[in-house]
Each structure stands twice: as C-alpha cells, then as structure tokens.
C-alpha cells in the first residue's frame, strides 16, 4: 500500500479532493441533521419551539418533555413492553434458530435437505396479511403478548447464516464428543453454541434492532389492548394524529391538542420529538457495534445449496 502513496500535489488532485471532501461532509450533515434537530427540539421548551427557529441547539433548555412522557402511563408501559418483547424474541429466536441450524448442518442427518428446503422456501412467499391475521385470530392469539414472539421463533435467513458457520467448524469436534458418549443436544449446547458466539452476537443485535423497530405486529394484532402497546406503535399513533392535524387544518387536530393539553406546558411536536429520541437512542448505541460484521453478514447471506 505504502508504495502507491506517492503524494500528488497537482491542481486537479487538490480540487477533486476538496470538492469530494466538501460533498461528503454535506452529505453527512444531511444524514445527521434531522436527528440532531429532533434532539434539540426534545430538550427545548414546548411553547418556545412553536415560535420556530430551533435548529441544532435548544433555546430554552428543559427536561419537561421527557418528564412528561415518562409520566404518561401509555408511554411508560409501551417502553416496558418494547424492552420485554425484544429480550424474549432475541432469546427464543437465537436458541431455536441455532438448534435447527445445528441439525441441518449434520451431513448424515436424513431430514437435513427437506428441512432446509421447507424453511428456505418461506423466504420467497408469504400467505399475505389477511390469511396471517385469520390464523392468529383462530389460534386465539389476538391481544396477547405471545403474538410478538411465537410466530418469530425461526428466521430462515439467519438459519442459513448460522448453518453456514457451523459447517465451517471441524467435524472431528462433534465426532470425538460422540465417542465420549455425548448426546446431540449436549453437543449443541456445550460445543457448538460456544463456538458460534461471534456469529450469534451479530445476529442477536440484528434481531434486537428488528424487534425494537417493529410496529406492524402491534398494529395488526394487539391494537385492541393498550397494556400491550409498544413504543413504536405509540409513536405512530402520535405521528398520525399530528399529521392529520397539520394537513386537515383543524378537525382531526382536536385529538392531538387534547392530548397535549392534558400534559401541560408542552406540545405534540415536543412530545413526539422526545419519544423519537427515546425510541432512537437504543439503536444509536447498538449500531456501531454491528459495523464490523456488516460485510461478513452480507456475504455469508448468499444462500447456497
């Protein structure tokens, strides 16, 4: 690499580098500005925000917006459910997906091929919203916590990623454990799982992000029960009520302003900003850790049979 690094001070090079750097800085600004602006609004006094002109920094600093949302029972409850749901999904999904991945990674297993096919096929078709809804309804799972995790115990894509990884583990490890008299489940728990930790950690983070960000399951299956609402769904309700308020002048706005009136000294816009921040922060904390696995994950993902 060093050899190629002949410094090039030609005018063309300087102009290009400057323009390129400037462009990339502008682009980065465009990426972070909306969130920074939301952050500033969430820490700014609600009534003051209405006057406009808040960009990157709060004008009248306050913690009132956050205090208000965490005193709203709906938001606090939704936060708890979002956390619980994410934890349960990560644990069950990783356990069952990797257990199945272990079995289909075993070359001698007679059902390995049909099982793989049955799961991979589901990546390419979906019965659709209505049939899925009818199934959940017939199983009496509407408005229950289990609807969040039970249908999501296996993800076909991660199954293939984990299987590919397990196949790269020397088979002699499994064989010697068998000679020592270990059963399959024991081999999976004691030998394979610990060796898969790096891959599982990555998948755990992706599953966690997906679960934290999902709102459609709450909307479709659990919207009838406030105590099972999630943060993203609460945010969606707030978003649509403020949007209706702004697009259809008055009418629909009554709902949003009534909500805001109940929680004094703040506005729907400020509340929304504060909830957005609460919903975004866990993601922003986690995603840099995902970074170094990005490329690996993307390349392993190619399904090969």
């Amino acid at each position, binding site marked *: 690499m060093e050899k190629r*690094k002949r410094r090039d001070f030609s005018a*063309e*090079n300087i102009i*290009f*580098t400057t323009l*390129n*750097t400037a462009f990339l800085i502008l*682009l*980065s600004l465009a*990426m*972070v500005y*909306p*969130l920074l*602006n*939301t952050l500033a609004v969430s820490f700014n006094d609600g009534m003051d925000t209405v006057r406009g002109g808040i*960009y990157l920094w709060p004008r009248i600093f306050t913690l009132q917006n956050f205090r208000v949302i965490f005193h709203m029972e709906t938001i606090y409850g939704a936060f708890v459910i979002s956390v619980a749901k994410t934890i349960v999904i990560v644990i069950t999904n990783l356990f069952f997906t990797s*257990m*199945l991945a272990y*079995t289909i990674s075993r070359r*001698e*297993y*007679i059902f390995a091929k049909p099982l793989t096919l*049955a799961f*991979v096929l589901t990546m*390419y078709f979906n*019965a*659709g*919203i*209505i*049939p*899925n*809804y009818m*199934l959940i309804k017939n199983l009496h799972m509407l408005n229950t916590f289990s609807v969040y995790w*039970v*249908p999501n*115990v*296996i993800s076909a894509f991660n199954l293939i990623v984990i299987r590919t990884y397990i196949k790269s583990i020397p088979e002699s490890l499994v064989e010697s454990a068998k000679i020592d008299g270990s059963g*399959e*489940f024991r081999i999976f728990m004691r030998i394979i799982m610990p060796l898969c930790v790096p891959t599982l950690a990555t998948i755990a983070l992706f599953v966690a*992000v997906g679960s*934290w960000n999902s709102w459609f399951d709450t909307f*479709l299956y659990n919207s009838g029960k406030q105590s099972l609402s999630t943060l*993203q769904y609460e*945010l*969606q309700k707030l*978003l649509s009520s403020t949007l*209706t308020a*702004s*697009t*259809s002048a008055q009418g629909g706005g009554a709902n949003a302003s009534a909500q805001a009136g109940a929680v004094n000294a703040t506005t729907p*816009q400020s509340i929304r900003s504060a909830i*957005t921040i609460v919903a*975004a922060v866990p993601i*922003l904390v986690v*995603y840099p850790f*995902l*970074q170094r696995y*990005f490329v690996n994950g*993307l390349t392993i993902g190619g*399904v090969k049979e």
Partner: protein
Amino acid sequence: MTARKDPWNSGRIWRAIISQRELIFMSVPLLLYKILFSYVPVTGWTMAFQNFKPAIRTWYKQEWVGFSNFIKLFSGINGERFIRDIRNTLAQSVLTLVLGYVCSILLALLLNEVKNVGFKRVVQNITYMPHFLSWIIVAGLVSTALSLPSSGGIINTLLVNLHLVKEPILFLSNPNHFWGIVAGSNLWKELGWNTIIYLAAITSIDVSLYEAADMDGANRYQKMFRITLPGIKSTIVILLIMSIGYILEAGFEIQYFLGNGLIVEKSETIDIFVLRYGIQMGNYSLATVAGIFKTLVSIILISGANFISGRLGEEKLI
C-alpha cells in the same frame, strides 16, 4: 460383496431414524411449527374463492363464488382503485430503485477516492445510521423536514432562503410530490447501507490494474470509469436483477404514515389496498385476492430473475 443396496430401502431409513432420534426431536417439532405459521395460512387463499363472512365459523360452509372476486378486483370502482394502486406501487418502486442505484454506486466511487481512512470511516458510519432507524422515526423526521419553516421544515427554510422558491412548498398536501418523497426517503435511509456491497466489491479489484493504468498515464476519471466501474459490473447487474424480482415491494410504512386524504391518488399502494379492504372494511375475500395477485407476480418475477442470473453465469440467487 453384493452390489450396493438402494440407499432408500426402508430398513436403512428405520435404522437411521432410530439412531438420529435426538436430531429428529430437535428439529421436527420446529418444522411442524413452521408449517403452522407459514404454510397453513396459505390455505386461507381459499377465501379468494368465497364470499367470506367471518361470522360463519365453518370454512367449507362459506358461499363459494368461483373467480368472481378476481373479476371484481379488476372491474368497476374496485378495479379503478386497484389498477391505480398497481401504478403507484410500480412508479414508487422504480423511482426508488433507479435513484437508489445511481446514487449508491456514485457514493461508493467517491468514498473509494478518499485517502484519509479516519475520515472515510466517519462518513461511512454516519451514512449507515439511518438504515437502523425504524420507518416510523424516519417518517416523523421526513414530515418535519418537509413541513413549513415555522414548524422546523428545514427543506422549505433552505429553499426560501436560497430564493429558489417564493412561497414554502406544501409537500405533503400536493399529490404530485409524493412519489419523489417516497424515493427521497428511501434514498436517505438506505444510501449509505447500499454502498457497503459495492465497496466490498471494489476491494476485490486487482490492484495491479490501477498500477498499469498509472504507468499509462490514466487520470482519475479514466481509472474510475474504465477500471473500478467495470470491476463491480457483475455486482451491479446481479443486484439489479434481484431487485427487479422485488419490484412490487415498494415499502409500505412511508406510504401508510405520510399518505393522507389529499394525496391518496398517488400514495396508496397494493399493500395499503389490502389493509384497507381487509382489516378496515372487513372485505376479506377481495383483500386476499389482491394479496394473491401480488404474491404470484412476485414469485414469477423472482424465478425469472433467478433464471436470468443463472443464464448470465452468475451465482443463482435461490
């Protein structure tokens, strides 16, 4: 020794089943589970041939109506609405695709020219960030950015202050802007993320090609367009074919969150049609027909894409 026995003779299978019983216990229940949650719902497609009424509990006692729901979907008022929604889905998705492709390839090329590793990493990290935000958060940010300057609409503020427009634009009340908003939101969210695969492809280009080009006095742009771009051509082609398979997946959230009565003409997509007819209006049969239509077209497109990429000598996708 006699000739090898048929490996599928029943004695062998039984012996294998007994010796592999533990593997079977670990996997077959999960298969049954998958059958329940992914394959059983497909039987719900029979609703497409019924005049489905949720009140009738027994499935075969529903009124069977043959293909009349399929005809209803494409004729009369429903038909107008559905065909409009197909148009919206295709338009939004093609716009998103083209914009996303061109911009992420260009960004990958530009990032590749950055020699300062630290700066490059910072830019990459920042541009990846929106990919991880939920669509609800993104929709909120987009609606704020597009609102009037007084409610923090940065885009209108910039446009007005740069004297590009006289009056702020009411982006979310004018149907003509909506397709652009969908494509723009997708671009903002996925631009950085989509460069990853191109940057990975660029690193696998043989360095000696650049050295040879240097010897011959090639300039930066010649290297970019004669070496780097052809070097990642196969990646570009395969990703393009693959996304054509998913052309009916225009996304759902941004249209659902930002769509409103004023712009429904341009915002409603097939997925939203299904949701409105099925869940909100209780017309399960028509919604199921629409869903089946979408699934079938997608399967045809995906297998077509797979076939073409196989023909081109690329790795098969499935």
